[in-house]
């Protein structure tokens, strides 16, 4: 203690004109996370890419729809989900892992040492971005399939039972996949690990199991996050899916419940790891 200075030379807080010296609140962390998401150009490109992928896929698949297929107009508009979900998964995974891969975690979690508000804010910001992206993707898909001449695909008709719910479902499923990516990203902390896990859970497993239908595989399929894609279907398509399965029939909202449960479990695991474990 060689040079402890008298109290009078300590920094004069009041005279520095700093208004309040208060700490992080959820709103403040939310503002910070919004700045972080919007200030990385890759995220903007990802949103645009997802919109283009959705619209392009909807247009491409729409070309093969015949009037006697039983496909509705909403099926065509939401069909882009099959590719767009990859964009949502990447968006979530990037938001979830960016802290840990870039070292930003050191800055973020020294500013907010309680940590969980950061994960909560990231979930809100990513979900909002996903919602906006989904609405843009639906709009682009609608325009792409309505304006360009598609051979025989039916036009979007909201009076078809479940058609408007399928459009809403597209947005909900997009948000769910984004949050799944975010949770996996925050849990695994590595983009490659998060993406591979997400793609296997949300896309590949369902396709593999579908190739080999049985009571067992159909039951597993109904319990995977990929069941969330059912949200994008109208009533007739859901009835057809339930009629074909040998596993449990998920009905209208069952797929949404399954993916929602996955999101909650993965985010809870991520929160546990974030709270209990070291950050580097």
């Amino acid at each position: 203690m060689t040079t402890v200075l008298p109290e009078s030379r300590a920094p004069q807080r009041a005279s520095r004109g700093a208004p309040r010296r208060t700490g992080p609140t959820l709103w403040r962390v939310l503002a910070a996370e919004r700045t972080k998401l919007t200030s990385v150009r890759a995220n903007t490109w990802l949103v645009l890419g997802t919109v283009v992928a959705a619209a392009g896929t909807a247009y491409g698949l729409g070309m093969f729809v015949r009037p006697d297929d039983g496909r509705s107009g909403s099926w065509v508009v939401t069909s882009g989900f099959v590719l767009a979900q990859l964009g949502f998964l990447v968006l979530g995974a990037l938001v979830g892992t960016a802290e840990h891969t870039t070292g930003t975690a050191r800055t973020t979690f020294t500013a907010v040492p309680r940590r969980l508000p950061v994960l909560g804010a990231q979930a809100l910001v990513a979900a909002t971005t996903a919602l906006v992206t989904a609405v843009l993707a639906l709009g682009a898909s609608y325009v792409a399939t309505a304006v360009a001449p598609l051979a025989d695909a039916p036009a979007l008709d909201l009076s078809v039972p479940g058609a408007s719910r399928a459009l809403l479902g597209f947005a909900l499923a997009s948000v769910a996949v984004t949050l799944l990516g975010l949770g996996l990203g925050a849990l695994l902390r590595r983009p490659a690990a998060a993406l591979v896990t997400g793609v296997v859970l949300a896309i590949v497993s369902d396709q593999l199991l579908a190739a080999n239908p049985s009571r067992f595989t159909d039951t597993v399929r109904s319990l995977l996050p990929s069941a969330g894609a059912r949200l994008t279907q109208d009533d007739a398509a859901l009835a057809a899916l339930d009629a074909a399965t040998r596993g449990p029939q998920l009905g209208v909202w069952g797929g949404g419940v399954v993916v929602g449960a996955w999101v909650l479990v993965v985010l809870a695991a991520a929160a546990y790891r974030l709270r209990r474990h070291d950050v580097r």
Partner: protein
Amino acid sequence: MIEVEALTKRYGSTTAVDGLTFTAPPGTVTGFLGPNGAGKSTTMRVVVGLERPTSGTATIHGRRYADLPAPLHAVGVMLDARSVHPGRTAYKHLLAMAQTHGISKARVREVIAQTGLEPAAHRRAGTFSLGMGQRLGIAGALLGDPATLILDEPVNGLDPDGVLWVRRLVRDLAAEGRTVLLSSHLMHELALCADRVVIIGRGRLLADAPVKEIVERSERAGTVRVRTPDPEPLTRELVASGAQVTPQEGGVLHVRGASVDDVGTAARRCGATVLELGTESGSLEEAYLQLTGDAVEYRAADARGGAR
């Protein structure tokens, strides 16, 4: 005021920090010195709550870091210049930090100006040189106008201008009554700006004392250096009076056990011509090397090493 008490941090079977106790008092620049892998960065990460101690405590103003109501206002932290998203501009990085505490944009611009980052403020951090990254890290540490600063290797990669600037900055901050804990593996750097040094090796405390005291402990301290064209008679004379003489190159003798006055008098007695006479002061480098000599643990492949 930073207080570290009996702090131990293990990763599996590796002990990074081993029962470390030290205090960084306010109004003082405390140097935190140790070879790579000694546990400096680990200690700092535990102090700011990024890692949990295996045992022991680390507190700031008597509180655990995680319990501080407004961390950025209490403690400014720069752990690693690479704590920034490479795709984000310096301004946005600092803005996001500021927003967590409701700090104004004006203050963000203020620290950008203070750290000389204005020309680069709207460039992505990925394009920054190491020195600019350091400046950005220091800007982040200053953002909340904190009473305590924890800076891990702040002069790493800075140009001479930047080194001088950091030296003056930490001196000024301490003069304002703030607590500054500054790690480095460059001993001469700390000799120039620290009041006291905490030296660690292999996670253990080796010394905690004012810089001057550490220097005086050095073996060479108290040695008289004399240059003469007649080393033989002078050596004989000095040895006869009980001093130890070690001949060096160029007619220089290092004398222990005799003062400058003794050596001068002895030279007159034996008629030796003295060309140069003075005391050798030990350097912090030497003191440091002696202290850490057996504590150096160089592990090139150790990802957890002190300075990354």
